[in-house]
């Protein structure tokens, strides 16, 4: 086996056998299995659903679930590595062929990879570490009518509640701004937006 694109480490022994078994599936069966796999990859939280769909596939095609799970584990090695390394669909196809999958099946999988890769990339980027991520912002503004020191005031205040994710917990931060501060804040945020857009 030549150099693979999706990984630098040696591939587990079982993978060749799993690819061989995959080749035994009909084109239709392989397509159905690929669909189940991409459903899971694009919605990784739906583990229950994935396992149910796998089990249904096994029953319908008279394959034992245990070996099927191993095959799926082997297949998933490629898209996971490919995502990390921003591989093109040609590279994915080449890797599957190198692992022993038939050209026809490898091409089909690579096509599906191409179709799904924007979604998958966005998911991977979304998982990237963020420090104190701003989740939500609530605001209210009003007029201070009076205080214990000033009978009539009439000044405008703006209150922001920032919901921040610190590690796994959410924290609320309350801030008050005066009107000039608000305009200055707005101005700065617009500058940030321009800056972010120039880099996108």
């Amino acid at each position, binding site marked *: 086996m030549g150099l693979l694109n999706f990984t630098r480490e040696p591939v587990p022994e079982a993978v060749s056998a799993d690819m061989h078994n995959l080749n035994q599936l009909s084109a239709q069966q392989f397509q159905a299995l690929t669909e189940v796999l991409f459903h899971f990859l694009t919605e990784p939280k739906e583990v229950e659903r994935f396992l149910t769909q796998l089990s249904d596939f096994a029953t319908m095609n008279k394959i034992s679930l245990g070996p099927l799970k191993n095959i799926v584990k082997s297949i998933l090695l490629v898209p996971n590595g490919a995502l*990390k390394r921003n591989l093109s669909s040609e590279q994915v196809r080449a890797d599957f062929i190198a692992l022993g999958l038939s050209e026809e099946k490898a091409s089909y999988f690579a096509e599906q990879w191409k179709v799904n890769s924007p979604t998958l990339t966005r998911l991977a980027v979304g998982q990237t570490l*963020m420090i104190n991520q701003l989740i939500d*912002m609530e605001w209210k503004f009003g007029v201070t009518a009076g*205080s214990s020191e000033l*009978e009539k005031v009439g000044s405008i205040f703006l209150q922001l509640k920032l919901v921040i994710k610190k590690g796994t917990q959410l924290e609320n931060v309350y*801030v008050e701004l005066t009107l000039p501060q608000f305009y200055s*804040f707005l101005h700065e945020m617009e500058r940030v937006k321009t800056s*972010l857009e120039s880099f996108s």
Partner: protein
Amino acid sequence: MAALRDGDFAALQTLLKAPSKDAVRQLCQECFCSPPAALGPLAQRAGPGLAVSAEEAEQLVTALHNLTRHVVYRGLTRAEDILCLFPENFHQNLKNLLTKIILENISAWRNEAQASQISLPRLVDMDWRVDIKTSSDSIVRMAVPTCLLQLKIQEDAALCGNNPVVSALTVELSKETLDTMLEGLGRIRDQLSAVANK
């Protein structure tokens, strides 16, 4: 907020013993700025200069505090309004001097009252920077711009006395979050304009 009491004006006449107009001016300033709890020590400091007893000094200082705070509270800006506060038999020249001093200071005092009113923690400063994320454990090569925003927030001044606690909070925003935030801020600006134009 202190209300004017009957004995206050009598106590104010003690000012006639003050060495100079500037001394009166200085005392007015200090009495306004001092919170009620600090009036005792202030009286002790001021007493000797006026050659009055400790008790008289304390009454004077309290009276001056009440008078200045009352004027600021009511938002009086005209000499006539302030002069009206004094009883008929109050010393003319002293009345005029006090009114003059108060008028000189009224807008600075009003600003100070507004600046020190209770509020939620206040924003005192903000800084930002834009980073480009080039790599992470989930994806080896990318070019994702992200914004880091640092807000310096000061706790309520009234709670901290002379040592306000300023904390710095650094927050990360993705482009989407920033867009949503700007949308919200834009709505605030529109509503503010609508209110201003009414």
